[in-house]
């Protein structure tokens, strides 16, 4: 929480200034202004309605589900929701833009200014101001490689709802920008308004980058890196661009305000078009769409349905559950993980750290190894809670618990079924333990003598031998105590 500490400068004497425009595809069943489905990966032009292909006479009708999702985002960043926002047309010609304009929001966006706390990798927390978020429709796709010397147009994506989230130019390093992007990514998935799938382009961003002399206020000329669709690429693209601009300025060259593209194979940005020759989009309010009215009741309905947000949950985990920050961060990196954790905890009350260790340890490892989402984990939260209860009750040891977990993952049944079937119940019966210890001590009389002469290290040897004899079922705590007593003579 050392927000006052300045980040390391990109290069001595220079400060980078970064703002991001994130495009989050809203996960609605149908498009922003038509009833056509939004599913990804369908045959080209099978998910384009008469409206999407812009037949004469067709008209847009707003999709209320998309509007609700925009409201949810606004509430989550503490932003005002405009009672009347305005859809505007952004006019330009391109073959994958069927109407010759994109319906967006310009002067009056649905979501006003808000902010988001962002934890940077170096441990600092920064507060990023979000200037606005607005609804707009996506364009189609131009397919350049499918036909010889011709370009194909796929309009399946045309009209897909996007929420464009515009940050203020308040970040000063690639690391901060990526941390912010990750925080937004977590939030939109947490809210269930975007699937966050970056490969499919559901979450992508334009990066505005400029540099200025440290200590100066005046913003430098910025460039915009378009359509970057991975955290790593954003980091690399911004790093490259900052260095390029500093180098240029130090060489006495001017920065040209322009749009640049990131080339992920070379980790470079290159000029796409200069703003001077760029289109004049001739924005004006879309006369086909009356101002978008959102009543106080609708806003309250969305507010009351809002889940506990990641930031609040993280703070609760630390303050109320006593979890370390690192655990809280990891658990709150996505809502399914946090919800899973809480469901486990409900079954093993008061054992937050134990539950966190297991969710972030065994469970995370198994998910990762099998490439499974937590929602589809073969061991659900209740099943894991049963296992952890047995561990807690001393029925099984931690080591055995891991074996049982593996068996549960493999589908052999519940923790109790596996413990019973394999006879894994821990030996906590003093008589049985004593018998096993006596047998071991009798077998290794020499080592007993050495121990008694002061070789304390042999204690672990005896523990190991008793465990072996009890097939690992001895209660380790009891075993330790009893063994020490017996060795003491």
């Amino acid at each position, binding site marked *: 929480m050392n927000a006052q500490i300045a980040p390391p400068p990109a290069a001595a004497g220079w400060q980078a200034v970064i703002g991001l425009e994130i495009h989050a595809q809203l996960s609605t069943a149908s498009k922003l202004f038509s009833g056509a489905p939004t599913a990804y990966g369908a045959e080209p032009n099978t998910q384009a309605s008469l409206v999407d292909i812009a037949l004469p006479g*067709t008209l847009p*009708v707003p999709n209320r589900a998309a509007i609700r999702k925009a409201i949810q985002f606004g509430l989550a960043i503490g932003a005002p929701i405009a009672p009347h926002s305005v859809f505007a047309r952004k006019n330009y010609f391109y073959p994958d833009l069927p109407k010759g304009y994109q319906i967006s929001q310009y002067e009056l966006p649905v979501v006003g200014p808000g902010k988001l706390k962002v934890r940077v990798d170096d441990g600092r927390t920064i507060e990023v101001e979000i200037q606005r978020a607005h609804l707009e429709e996506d364009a189609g796709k131009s397919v350049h490689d499918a036909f010889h010397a011709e370009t194909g147009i796929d309009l399946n994506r045309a009209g897909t709802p996007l929420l464009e989230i515009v940050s203020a130019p308040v970040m000063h390093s690639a690391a901060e920008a990526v941390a912010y992007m990750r925080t937004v990514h977590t939030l939109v998935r947490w809210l269930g308004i975007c699937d966050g799938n970056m490969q499919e382009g559901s979450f992508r961003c334009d990066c505005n980058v400029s540099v200025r002399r440290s200590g100066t206020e005046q913003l430098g000329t910025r460039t915009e890196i378009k359509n970057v669709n991975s955290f790593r690429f954003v980091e690399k693209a911004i790093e490259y661009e900052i260095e390029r601009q500093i180098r240029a300025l130090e060489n006495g060259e001017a920065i040209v305000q322009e749009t640049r593209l990131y080339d992920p194979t070379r980790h470079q940005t290159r000029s796409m078009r200069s703003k001077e020759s760029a289109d004049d989009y001739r924005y004006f309010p879309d006369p086909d769409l009356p101002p978008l009215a959102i009543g106080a009741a609708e806003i309250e309905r969305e507010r009351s349905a809002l889940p506990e947000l990641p930031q609040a949950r993280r703070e609760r985990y630390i303050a109320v559950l006593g979890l370390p920050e690192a655990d809280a961060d990891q658990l709150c990196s996505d809502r399914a993980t946090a919800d899973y954790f809480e469901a486990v905890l409900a079954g093993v009350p008061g054992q937050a750290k134990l539950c966190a260790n297991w969710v972030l340890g065994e469970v995370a490892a198994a998910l990762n190894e099998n490439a499974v989402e937590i929602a589809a984990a073969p061991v659900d939260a209740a099943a894991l809670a049963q296992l952890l209860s047995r561990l807690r009750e001393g029925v099984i040891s931690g080591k055995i618990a891991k074996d049982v977990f593996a068996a549960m993952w493999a589908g052999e049944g519940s923790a109790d079924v596996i413990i019973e079937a394999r006879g894994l119940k821990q030996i906590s019966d003093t008589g049985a333990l004593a018998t096993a210890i006596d047998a071991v001590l009798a077998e290794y009389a020499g080592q007993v003598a050495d121990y008694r002469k002061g070789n304390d290290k042999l204690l672990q040897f005896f523990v190991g031998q008793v465990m072996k004899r009890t097939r690992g079922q001895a209660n380790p705590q009891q075993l330790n105590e009893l063994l020490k007593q017996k060795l003491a003579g």
Partner: protein
Amino acid sequence: MSSASLAALGADLAAGRTSAAELAAQALDRAQQHAALNSFISLQPEAALAHANSVDANRRAGRDMHALAGIPFAHKDIFCTKGIATTCGSRMLRGFAPPYDAQVVERLAAAGAVSIGKTNMDEFAMGSSNENSAYGAARNPWDAARVPGGSSGGSAAAVAAGIVPFATGTDTGGSIRQPAAFCGITGLKPTYGRVSRYGMIAYASSLDCAGVLARSAADCASVFSAIAGHDGRDATSVDRPLEDVQALLPRPLRGLRIGLAREYFGGGVDAAVAAQVRAALAELEKLGAVLVDISLPSAHHAIPAYYVIAPAEASSNLARYDGVRYGHRAADARSLDELYSRSRAEGFGAEVQRRILVGTYALSAGYYDAYYLRAQKVRRLIALDFAAAFEQVDLIAGPTAPTTAFRLGEKSDDALAMYAADVNTVAVNLAGLPAISAPAGFVDGLPVGLQLIAPAFAEARLLNAAHQLQQATDWHTQEPQA
């Protein structure tokens, strides 16, 4: 020549004295006889007769029939008709057959009205004379050397010539009322949002309005009832109960306050036309209406505001005609830019290109505030003018057009003179109000139209006043010499 009212035709159909098929065949015959008027871009005799036969079969089967069932009519070629060429008067859409029906088309088809063809119009509804059609000018049945008005000129000419008893039209700045006035028929432009725009090819979305041209106010009322109402496919469609406009037709006019807007009788209005309109107003006075002199001080800003807003919207609405997915595509374009520029240069006529250029300019960075935004402010003032006037009066009256029908070619080289023909009609669209043009007599043998304007959603009041006038006068029953 057929001059029977819709009610009379409906009674003949109900009584079995005629059939839908017979009426459709007669209408198609008359369309052939009047081919010189060029009032149709296309006729669909087979589809019309098939539809008529099915309506007749339903009637024979004893089904409940709509008042319009079996009545032949025509659609302005701006309404999308499934599988039937819809050109919007443009070369751009030559041969374009939409895969769907406009809401107005659906409604009338469901009522059993039989469309015989698609009427001529100024390209993309841009024009006041029908001379801007890619399919040739339509002509005025009262004098074939004169224009029928525009942009719904084909619809007006077809009704005036007796080819069909009614036709659909659209009105963005006067495109129903002015041709109705020029052709001596009745034309109703409803309140903006009252009739769905779904499937109506857009010119200027915030102004475009579907309506009807017919031989009487009563007939307009009947068709209006069939096409008005909420449609979820048009976000600007209004969900509000509809008055029973037909039941209110007989209401006496006693005490109805009619405002005579000084500005509507001003400078550019032909004195004989103004005098004739005053004569019609005197008839209304005899029926009990009270005439009140009023002023609409912003009226003279309507034309400039309209000719910024409408082209601005058009420049965007017509961007979809790019030669990529449908419509005219230039042959052998060597680049994308060439494909766009040549397809559009070849597909659009001069007036459409002019308005696209004007509109693009008005929306451009650096000019937006001075033109588009300013025009929107004027639009607001005009609406406030009307609101203030309707505190004093129930209807506002004036000549629909400043002159009678002009000669073909008379204004076609002078865009500004042509735009001035809309001086009394465009303000109504800017304010989104309903208005009607009803026949008000003749000057030198050419029809004159009386425009009545009502507050939003008061179509019943308009139709009632025009109907009462038509009960007391016979101007609307006059027919051009064939």
